């Protein structure tokens, strides 16, 4: 059963944040959005999310630093980096992989159908992984 799983979307673009809300509004998932990495970490500390969508480039501590902090404190929470699929962005992420961080990618801008597929797939996978 997938009731009330919590999804946290961290992105400084209002349009992107709204895309996640609209994509998941008819599901049983709870969606919270914030516009900075700092706010995202505060939200996670207050109530651990089940899945995080994280923008790569934001004002403040930015996506990479937010990713490091998320995985340090909540290594079990899957993170999708929301980014354009371009080599110059991937270079930044290769270092994170080399440092042992684990994440998936979703291309920006992400359409509702893709967001739903990723959320269902990831959270159902986590549920299965948790099954004894």
């Amino acid at each position, binding site marked *: 059963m997938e009731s009330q799983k919590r999804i946290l979307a961290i992105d400084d673009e209002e349009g992107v944040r709204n895309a996640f809300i609209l994509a998941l509004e008819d599901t049983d998932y709870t969606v919270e959005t914030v516009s900075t990495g700092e706010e995202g970490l505060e939200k996670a500390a207050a109530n651990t999310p089940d899945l995080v969508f994280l923008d790569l480039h934001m004002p403040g501590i930015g996506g990479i630093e937010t990713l490091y902090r998320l995985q340090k404190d909540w290594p079990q929470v899957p993170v999708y980096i929301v980014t354009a*699929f371009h080599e110059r962005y991937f270079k930044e992420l290769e270092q994170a992989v080399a440092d042992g961080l684990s994440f998936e990618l979703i*291309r920006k801008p*992400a359409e509702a159908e*893709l967001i739903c597929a*990723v959320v269902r797939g990831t959270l159902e*996978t986590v549920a*299965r*992984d948790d099954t004894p």
Partner: protein
Amino acid sequence: MSTITRFALFVTGNSSRAERTTDVVRNTLKQYLNGSFNLEVIDVLSNAASAERHEIFATPTLIRLGPPPNARVIGDLSSSGSLAAALHLRELAAEKS
């Protein structure tokens, strides 16, 4: 004559999560197709051009490249049953038996 079915799996990096996904996919293909498949595992981070060419929108993504019907599965690659249905593996296995 046995036809090799080609698949491409797009993952992010070489994390334990990516390795687990690769294992599930490979084992599922072995289960249904024995040795008559080719699976190429592609790290999107070091192959952005390949991801672009195959219109990859998220990882992990598994594509059946051919022979037809072509198909793709995005996000949840952890269930052998779901993979088999999405990639028409049962039909392929029946053809080969």
